[in-house]
């Protein structure tokens, strides 16, 4: 048990570096050799962020499960042949850029609270913040693509098709959670 935790911890650290520096190769490894223990580390990081930011964990977990479930079921209709465990772990790692963005934005909210002005300082901050956000968004898109590519074993065409079906559903789901006041962040 202790060995599993330690080995998975090391593997998690190595994988986080890998998804930043060699995402393609790392994702292939995650899907074929990843363990559910690694997912626990992602869960701990998400819980820690939620605790610090005073956000409820349950909607985050629900969103993760809904997203994985939707991609999995609609992927099956599109001919997906992956392993659910592999896909769960692969999708879990796509939360890393999300966590980095949310943590940084939370920190910046405390350090430099909005609104931003149109003065040079405010404008410069806005540009840098948008650059940072867009870079992380592109990183997340790549990781999500790789999770679908290796986790569901789909090609680009089918990934686009599945995404075209799933993303509007997730959009409506996010709005519903936001309107119900369950979750204040409609874009996880």
């Amino acid at each position: 048990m202790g060995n599993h935790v330690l080995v998975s911890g090391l593997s998690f650290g190595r994988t986080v570096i890998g998804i930043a520096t060699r995402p393609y190769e790392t994702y292939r490894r995650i899907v074929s050799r990843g363990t559910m223990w690694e997912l626990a580390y992602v869960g701990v990081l998400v819980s820690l962020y939620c605790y610090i930011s005073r956000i409820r964990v349950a909607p985050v977990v629900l969103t993760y499960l809904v997203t994985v479930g939707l991609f999995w079921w609609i992927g099956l209709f599109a001919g997906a042949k992956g392993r659910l465990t592999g896909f769960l772990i692969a999708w879990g790692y796509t939360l890393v850029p999300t966590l980095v963005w949310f943590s940084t934005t939370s920190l910046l909210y405390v350090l430099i609270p909005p609104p931003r002005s149109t003065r040079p300082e405010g404008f410069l901050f806005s540009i840098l913040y948008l650059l940072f956000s867009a870079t992380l968004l592109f990183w997340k898109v790549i990781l999500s693509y790789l999770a679908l590519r290796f986790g569901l074993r789909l090609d680009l065409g089918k990934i686009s098709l599945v995404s075209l079906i799933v993303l509007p559903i997730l959009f409506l789901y996010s709005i519903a959670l936001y309107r119900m006041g369950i979750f204040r962040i409609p874009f996880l």
Partner: protein
Amino acid sequence: MTDALYQKFVKRWEEVMDLPPQTVGPLTPYYKKLVARLKVMPWPVLVIGSVVLVVGLYLLLGSAITILVSVLQRGF
């Protein structure tokens, strides 16, 4: 080549060739060029993409991008 090394090579080869290579018709060479830059250390391409996006947003919204940033920061 020793047996162990050969077996390792075969295992790696099977792992790499597990999924058929992605093709996108006549755009395949361009796709391969782009993807090659994203497979290892993708950050330069990601940053360039972000710069293009942010410049586009600035041309579209002008100084109103500060409002967008305020909305994003208030997402909490």
